[in-house]
Structures are given as structure tokens and as C-alpha cells.
């Protein structure tokens, strides 16, 4: 469980640092490995990741590198096979939350101080965004997933609903700033329509904080999935997914059977590190 961080950043005009190619590729290597595992992982697992293959709670050893879990499934195979599911959940959520966030942020930001019904609606949406953020994400997620059922599409939908308001707020703040810039007036005078104006000038200049925050949204999506799995509304068992694996293994970990929760937790942490590396590479954010 986590939350996205509302980072007030420096203006976009700051110079992008040029990087030496060596450093750049190093930050991308972990992400490339994760991606590779997601693609080939399910093909190379030593055991079926969704079947009982041995006695439960076996210690890590030669037969089962990461041991077996409380049902007798192979933890190594499951951890590897889960990479694809988790990456899918994270990426779809990130794209959906960011796209919707940018759109809503733009509309709200451009119309908020208008008089008339449009302005009224925009102000209402703005306040609603505040409210959604104020409610605990995990509770909203619980309600939505309890309603839609726990499948990958419904999970990503619920996570997007939870995570987009912050993206929208980031964009809105930036739109409010951009709106007063002189180049917009110049474009208006030169005859651009309002739509062209938004597409050509406002969008590129105000969407960057949401893009920069995207790696964090990715991490939050996976960690929230884990939290929901911990509370019993994860994907259908025995679908391999790190969050529910950690959740199922956690009670045993307190009494010394640490392996079935530890390995997926490490995989999760490494993946979030890898993705935040990509984020830094793309947006020069250290």
C-alpha cells in the first residue's frame, strides 16, 4: 500500500542534463531484465506455477529453490510466473491513470475559473478529486473490487480510479500556470482555435509532471494490489501474483516460515526500483 506523491517540481524549462551513454544504459538494464522475465518467465518455470507439486512449507533447497508455499506450490515458479501479471497490472494502470489524469486535469484547469455551467462543473470535479484523494485508497479499492470482481481488467480499473486524481491534480496546477503565459495570447491572436491551442500549446507544456510521476504510479499500483491481496480481494487463487503471494505467506512468516512471502516481496521491490530507474532516465529526475 502506498500513495502517490504530489511533487511540486521545478519548471519544465530547466535544462535536461546530458548523460553519458554508459550511465544511461546501466539505469535501463534492470528494467530490461524484468521485461525479459515477464516475457519468457512462464515458459521456463521448472514446475507448474498453479498446481500443487509437493508437500507444503518445504524449505528452500535443491528441488525447490525458493521452497514451497502453504498449499504445496513451488515458490520459485510462482514468483517468476507472476512477473507478467504484475507488470501487466502496473503498466495498464499507469497508462490509464495518466491518460485520464491528463485529460481531466486539462479540462478542469482550462474551465475552472469560467462563469456559467461549464465552470461550475469544472469546480465540482476539482472538489470531487480532492475528496477521492481524501478517502483511504485501500477502502475505495475494496469497495470497487468487491463490486466488479477480482480480475486483471477490474483490478486495473479500480487502481486507475484510485490513482488518476493525483495525476489530474498535478496537471491542473500546471495548466493554471501555463494558462497565463504570453505565448497563449500570441497563439490566440494568430487565429488558432481553442482546441488547437490546447493540443499544441497547453498539453505539451502541462502534462510533464504527470509523466514524471508515472513511475511512482506504477509502483503504487503493484503495492496496492499487494495490499488488496492482503485483505483478501486479490486475483483468483492460485493465479501467480506477488501481492497475494506475500499476503498468503505473511502469517507464516511471523512464525518462521519466511520463504513464501520473502521472495515475491524482494521481486516486487526490485521491480519498482527498476521502473523508477526508467522514470529517472526518461525525465532526468534524480
Amino acid at each position, binding site marked *: 500500500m*502506498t*500513495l502517490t506523491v504530489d511533487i*511540486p517540481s521545478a519548471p519544465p524549462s530547466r535544462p535536461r542534463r546530458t548523460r553519458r551513454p554508459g550511465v544511461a544504459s546501466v539505469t535501463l538494464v534492470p528494467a530490461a531484465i524484468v521485461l525479459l522475465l515477464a516475457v519468457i518467465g512462464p515458459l521456463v518455470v521448472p514446475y507448474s506455477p498453479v498446481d500443487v507439486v509437493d508437500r507444503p512449507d518445504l524449505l528452500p533447497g535443491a528441488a525447490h529453490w525458493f521452497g514451497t508455499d502453504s498449499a504445496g506450490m513451488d515458490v520459485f515458479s510462482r514468483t517468476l510466473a507472476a512477473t507478467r501479471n504484475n507488470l501487466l497490472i502496473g503498466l495498464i494502470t499507469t497508462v490509464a491513470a495518466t491518460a485520464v489524469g491528463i485529460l481531466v486535469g486539462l479540462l478542469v484547469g482550462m474551465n475552472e*475559473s469560467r462563469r456559467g455551467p461549464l465552470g461550475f462543473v469544472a469546480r465540482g470535479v476539482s472538489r470531487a478529486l*480532492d475528496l477521492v484523494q481524501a478517502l483511504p485508497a485501500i*477502502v475505495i479499492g475494496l469497495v470497487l473490487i468487491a463490486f466488479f470482481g477480482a480480475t486483471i481488467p477490474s483490478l486495473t480499473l479500480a487502481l486507475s480510479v484510485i490513482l488518476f486524481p493525483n495525476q489530474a491534480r498535478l496537471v491542473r496546477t500546471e495548466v493554471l500556470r501555463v494558462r497565463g503565459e504570453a505565448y497563449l495570447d500570441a497563439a490566440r491572436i494568430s487565429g488558432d482555435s481553442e482546441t488547437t491551442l490546447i493540443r499544441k500549446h497547453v498539453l505539451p507544456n502541462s502534462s510533464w509532471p504527470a509523466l514524471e510521476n508515472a513511475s511512482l504510479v506504477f*509502483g503504487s499500483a503493484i503495492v496496492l494490489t499487494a*495490499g488488496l491481496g492482503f485483505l483478501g480481494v486479490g486475483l483468483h487463487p492460485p493465479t501467480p501474483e506477488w501481492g497475494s503471494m506475500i499476503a498468503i505467506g505473511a502469517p507464516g512468516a511471523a512464525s518462521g516460515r519466511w520463504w513464501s512471502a520473502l521472495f515475491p516481496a524482494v521481486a*516486487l521491490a526490485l521491480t519498482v*526500483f527498476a521502473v523508477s530507474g526508467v522514470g529517472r532516465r526518461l525525465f532526468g529526475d534524480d
Partner: protein
Amino acid sequence: MSALWSRNGWWVRRLAILPVHLLLFAVVVFFLVKLIPGDPVAVLSGGQRMTPEQYEAARASLGLTGTVFGQLGAFLVNTVTLDLGNSVLTGTSVLAEMGSRLPETVELAVMAMVVSSLVAVGLGFLVVLRPRNLVSRAVASYSRAAGAVPDFCLGVAGIFVFYSVLHWAPAPIGRYDTLLNPPPRTTGFPFLDALFSSDTALMGSMLAHLWLPVGVLVVAYAPMLVKLFIRSLDQAKNAQATKFRIASGASRRMVMVSIARRALPATVAMFGTIFGFMVGGAVVVEQLFAIPGMGEYAVQAVTRSDFVSLRGFLLIVGALSLLVFFLVDVVTMLLDPRRRPGVAVAGG
């Protein structure tokens, strides 16, 4: 009179619209809670044998019969009269539950936030001033992936290491030893109450029980503060104002204070967000350490389709946030009159 209105109207209008917002929010809550599947009567009966007539009677007694709008009306009337109802399952008053859980949760969150901010300021300065230091590098990279390690992983690991193996922490069962009596209730904040009744045994037990959950919350959430603070410090360090101070020969301490003052506001905003999160969302830490709070209450309500409790929870948390937003708005408007509504905004 009109002068008085024009000077104060902006916040009075804002205050007057607050109940309207809350009422709209109540409508949203009503429909949101309708979404949770599960049948309260099924939970209530524990699946015991029931004839269709008994089933209908039980539904009626829960106010679940009649049209949706009838139910909505009844709910809104109750809300306006501050009657949040009783839990479907246990029959306890929702308002009373909130009254006892909210201060307990807030107290834990305050403890975690105080420690977190000390940690954030300390580590932030360390990283910015000694970037090549080994500790600094470790801190910087951990904070960069802020939130990568879920709080419940840290919680389980903490319990395993400090309770099961090392025995440094007492059993993670509640706020204080099971055999101690609760403090007499004066403020509702357990530690303060123990303090008021000068109950040293209880206070000692509370400190022994709370250091680990507070530590878990700090390790899980302080990195976000650290990350932000490092960044703001960096910006402040490189700003013109710093160069001016150094150029004009200010002491090192003066320069530091100046940098910190300019770096803090953004961190303070973040502080608010995390604090709000801890009040409603620290479910897992609450569960692991058996310190039942607001978050756990909401989760229980969802899993048992206790719609009355869930509505009450959402209303209280929503009202609290609306109030906080209002105060924040008023404070910013006081500081910066241009933000007040009615003041023409360029392009508006």
C-alpha cells in the same frame, strides 16, 4: 455593512457551502456503499435456517425494504440529525465507535509523523551536505524507490525479528500489556490519558508496545518525505537567494537556516497527505499489531457488508477532509488574497 461583507464574504460563502458539499458527499456515499456486494441479512443470520418470511422481516428491520429513494431520504435525514445508526452486525453505535477510534488512530499517526519529520530533516541535510558519504547514498537510493517495500512486509519482518527471535519487543497485541487496565478516559487519546492519570506503568507499557509499529510506519513512509525534502533542499541550495547569502558573507548556520526555510513548505504539504493516509489507510499495521483503528474498522465493514458502519466511516472521514480543505483554503487565501474567489483571474 456592505464593506464588512465585501471584506469577509469570501470565507463566509465558502463556509456556508460546506454543509451543501457534505450533503452531496453523503449522497455519493450512499450509492458507493450500495455497490458493496454481500447481503447483510445473510451475514447477520450466520447462514442459519430461515424461511422467506423471516428473511423479509429481517430485511425490513434493517431498513432495507422500500424504494432506493426512500432509503436515501431516511439516510439523509439521519445524517442531518447526526444519527449515524448502529452497526448492523454488533449493534454498537457508529458514532461512539468513531469517537473512540479516531483519537486513538490520530495519536498513533502523530507519533509516527513526529519521528518521520525528524528523520526526514536529519537525513535530508546529511544527503545534501555529504552526498558522497556511504550512508547518504544508501538513504538516497532507498528514498528514490519510496514505497517499493509494502508496509506489511516491513511489519511482518519487524515482528519476526524483534518479537519472535530477539524478544526485544513485547507481543504485538494492542497498545499496552493485556493485563493492564485502560486509562480513565479524559481526552480519548490513550497515551495522553495515561499521562493525565500519571499511570507510569501504563505509559511504560505503551512505549514498549508502540515503538515497533511506529518504527514500521516511519520506515515505510518517511522515505517519501526524505525524497521530497532532498529535492527541495537541492533546489533551495542552488537558488539565487543562497548565492546572495554566501556572497554577502552570512555565517554557515544562517545559510543553512535560510535553505531549510525555503525547502520546507513543499515537504509540509506532503506531510499533510501522508498524515491523512495514516488516519484512514494504515490498515495493515493496525491488523498486524492488533491496534484496531479507523482503517481496520472500514475494512471489517466492507468484508461483512455492514453498510451502516461503512457509511458512517466514509461520512466522518469525508467531513474531516472537507474541514481540513476549508482550513487550508482559508489559510492560503489569507496569505495570498489573489486566490480569493471573485478576484478576476487572467484569462478567466
